[in-house]
């Protein structure tokens, strides 16, 4: 009997049962202070190794891309000409928009107070579910803040804020839902993460118009995420499993593993 209590199986069953109970009751907030301490210990090492490996990965990519530089350069020149023309048109529309806003007494669009943050780690299972940044509660970061790159491309939202670090839940995370719309015809719906693999634009009414190539931006519904942040473009449109709604696959312009710096929207000015 005494032998049984010291044997391997008993030890495994007791410890495993303890952890199963811990997971079942999931006292997530209970571990937050310990998580915060662990994050502080790991932070300097992760920061150095992330930036070093980012440099190594970039250099490797650069060496690989030397052969394609000529073709890419030609392609970029053509794209540049198109964008210059588009930019001129948008500038014209912007001034027209400002005049109309003034005439209709509309408030100006939001400008954001941004804080730069460096990425220090990512989802260890490589599922593009989250990334960790080196800004935390001491920098004024709170849960729910939006995280962007290039001033308006949405990366995700802040969740789990530690003292000096915070976790950004990406749009591809299956727990992520964001209210979105198409910028072309204001078709509204919800962008949901697809198991770390992509983003699905869901809950689109059958009567609403949506087409491949439409640009998807945040709708601002709910107030947590500002309106107009770019999410991606529609790649494919299909009917939902129950046939009640339309769904669209969103192609994101972001490659999360290529990001080093992101910006937190702290407030709208």
């Amino acid at each position, binding site marked *: 009997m005494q032998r049984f209590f010291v044997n*391997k*199986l008993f*030890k*495994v069953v007791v*410890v*495993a049962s*303890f*952890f*199963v109970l*811990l*997971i079942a009751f*999931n006292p*997530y907030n209970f*571990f937050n202070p*310990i*998580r915060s301490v*662990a*994050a502080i210990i*790991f932070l300097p*090492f*992760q920061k150095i*190794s*992330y930036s070093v*490996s*980012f440099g*190594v*990965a970039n250099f*490797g990519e650069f060496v690989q891309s030397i052969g394609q530089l000529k073709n890419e350069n030609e392609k970029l020149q053509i794209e540049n000409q198109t964008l210059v023309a588009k930019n001129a048109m948008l500038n014209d529309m912007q001034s027209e928009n400002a005049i109309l806003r003034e005439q209709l007494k509309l408030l100006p669009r939001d400008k954001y107070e941004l804080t730069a943050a460096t990425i*220090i*780690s*990512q*989802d*260890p*299972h*490589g599922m*593009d579910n*989250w990334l*960790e940044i080196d800004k935390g509660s001491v920098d004024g970061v709170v849960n729910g803040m939006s995280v962007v790159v290039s001033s308006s491309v949405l990366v995700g939202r802040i969740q*789990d804020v530690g003292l000096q670090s915070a*976790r950004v839940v990406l749009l591809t995370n*299956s*727990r992520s839902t964001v209210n979105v719309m198409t910028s072309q015809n204001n078709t509204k719906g919800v962008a949901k993460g*697809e*198991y770390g693999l992509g983003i699905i634009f869901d809950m689109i009414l059958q009567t609403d118009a949506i087409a491949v190539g439409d640009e998807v931006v945040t709708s601002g519904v709910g107030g947590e995420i500002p309106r107009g942040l770019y999410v991606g473009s529609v790649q494919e449109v299909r009917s939902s499993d129950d046939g009640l709604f339309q769904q669209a696959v969103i192609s994101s312009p972001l490659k999360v*593993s290529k990001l080093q710096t992101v910006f937190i929207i702290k407030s709208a000015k």
Partner: protein
Amino acid sequence: MKKNIIYAIVLFFAIVLQTSVLKLIAPTSVVGDIVLMLVLAGAIIDGFFSFFWLAVFFGIVYDLVGYVQVGSHAIVFLLIVYFVSFFSRRFSVELGGVGLVWFFFFVVFATILSNGTMAFLVAFDLQNFNTYFKEFGSFKNIFIQIFYNVFLFLISFVVLKKIKKHL
């Protein structure tokens, strides 16, 4: 004691590598799990009793740093340590000959157990078990992950063996 401290340092840096390096340098979106493979190698080399608590402790640390429910990796690691000790007591598990087949078998088991547990926890959290297989990953992804893990396991095994030899 000295050995445990060195193992702890190795596992600490493995967690740093896993969370901040592997994803960046991996040629595909799927990455291996160096912490899991170190635990597997440690269990083979050191056996159940000397590696059990270290595996459980670093399982908890990995859970804390990896933002998953505390206990998830700890359960996976302790099951791996038990599973390995169960087989290595009965069969010869060495780097060479039939032992290599056992190594491969352990890597496949550890990869599937880890993915299965993590997918179960997400499905449990979302209260939607239809999502289980999607979270688990496609066969192609699992195959690539096993391939990476075999590579990481061999490195881990050689490193830990060398450490043990020098102590």
